[in-house]
């Protein structure tokens, strides 16, 4: 399935590449991570409570539905993180490592 969000304007921006679960993905400069991910695909993550896929909900940093992780294990709110070139994002929560709990 293609992207969920539809771009209506502001399409003349520089392209940025990032990694999404190890695969190359593209977004535009000024995109939030959420926008870039929902242009590339239809969801952000799996609900850990077994009720399916999630694609964000409030987009204003209040609901925490849009958590994704960097490949180093850091947690990001996709709605309030600007896309940066070279970001490497994973959509499943990495297993807790001692280094991330210290």
């Amino acid at each position, binding site marked *: *399935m293609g992207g*969920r*969000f*539809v*771009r*209506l*304007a*502001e*399409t003349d*921006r*520089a392209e940025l590449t990032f990694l999404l679960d190890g695969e190359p993905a593209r977004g535009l*400069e*000024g*995109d*939030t991570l959420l*926008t870039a991910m929902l*242009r590339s695909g*239809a*969801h952000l993550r799996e*609900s850990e*409570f*077994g*009720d*399916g*896929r*999630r*694609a*964000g*909900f*409030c*987009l*204003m*940093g*209040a*609901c*925490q*539905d849009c*958590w994704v992780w960097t490949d180093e294990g*850091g*947690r990001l709110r996709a*709605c*309030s993180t*600007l896309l940066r070139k070279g970001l490497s994002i994973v959509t499943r929560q990495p297993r807790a490592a001692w280094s*991330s*709990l*210290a």
Partner: protein
Amino acid sequence: MVEPRVVVVGAGPAGVRCAEALVAAGVRPTVIDEGRRAGGQIYRRQPENFTRPYAKLYGTEAKRAEAIHRTFDGLADRIDYRPETLVWNIADGHVWTATDSRQGALAFDALVLCAGATDRLMPVKGWNLAGAYSLGAAQIALKAQACAVGRRVVLMGSGPLLYLLAAQYLQAGAELAAVLDTSPGWRRIAALPKLLAEPSVLWNGLALTFALRRAGVPAYTGVQPIEIEGTAEGGVEAVSFRDSGGQTRRIDCDAAALGHHLRPETQLADLARCRFQFDASSRQWLPERDASGRSTTPGVYLAGDGASVLGARAAEASGRLAALAALQDLGRPVADAEVAALRRQLAGWDRFAQGLREAFPWPAEQAAALPDDAIVCRCESIAAGELRRVVREAGACEANRAKAFSRVGMGRCQGRYCGHAGAEVIAAAANIPLEQVGRLRGQAPVKPLPVAIEEDLR
């Protein structure tokens, strides 16, 4: 004279006007903003490399948005502005902040909370599917990212944002599958005398509904939502509802945006130990404040939609008024005439807001009617039936007790999106007045913090 330490939380219309009044009185406030740039959600700014003009972004409110941004930018060297900073606790006379993974604590002589509001949500079966959003989210996607949340979008709920967003999506070229209002049309007529308290805003609202009609978008009033249909993998596929004549209808779509007006972000007021009272007309608990915005905690002031949802224009007045109250309490001279004028302005907005609540009421009865298998808590996927079970079997009729047993309100949104409806489900299941259910206590941290956080006591 010792420089007073004044902290303003929030940089939306209330926070900006508050900071402006403080600076004019010679105070250098610290302004803490969760956003990247000032403006709040209502006047949220697009990224620097976007080019749409103010008129396109903010419509009839373009001049106000621009004035707020310019005012704030003009204060830059006279305030201590801390963007992308979360206030996660208020305790021991300090405001506790987190920026990235750094933590700080600020002492204050006066604290003005302008924390804003979020969408107020009534759950509907299927609202946990991918592609279901709040109305505010659908608006942010457009305003801040120039995107629609789907190819064919249904807007459902009630309140001014339903129609404002519809008009904005149409103007931007998005496809709207339908606009579904849970409030029956006659309520708008009945509320007219109060809505006339602010004729220009009423006129803007009427113009939005005419635009919708002209565009030929299916629009229904007095609907009862049945379900957001779809699959766990693919997300939203349709919205089904009963129309005002009782007929069941189904509209294909790949996104649904939902909301019933707004709810104030009151957690920080709670942590500052402000007293709350039940507001019967909006069926929610609000922090008490005097006519100038003083809370019941000395030195803590409340302004904007975070205190009571009166809208962005009122927030400018209440932000300024709270600053004047703080200045007065700090022993600075304040013009009584200006205080009186601002209070009169707010009384008008209060009457208008009452009209909006009557025209687009919170559909409390829908919570009682939610099927047992409808999710109430999106965070942890907990259904209405489970919440009803703890009410009936464990006798948990108080909000915090029901939360402890059912986990509804304990998830990552901390009850922001399930709390109001959850309380209605409890009240209906226990057959007690909503007021008796009480309210979820604010807990620190008010939002999740990064796991690794370092002390940075400034």
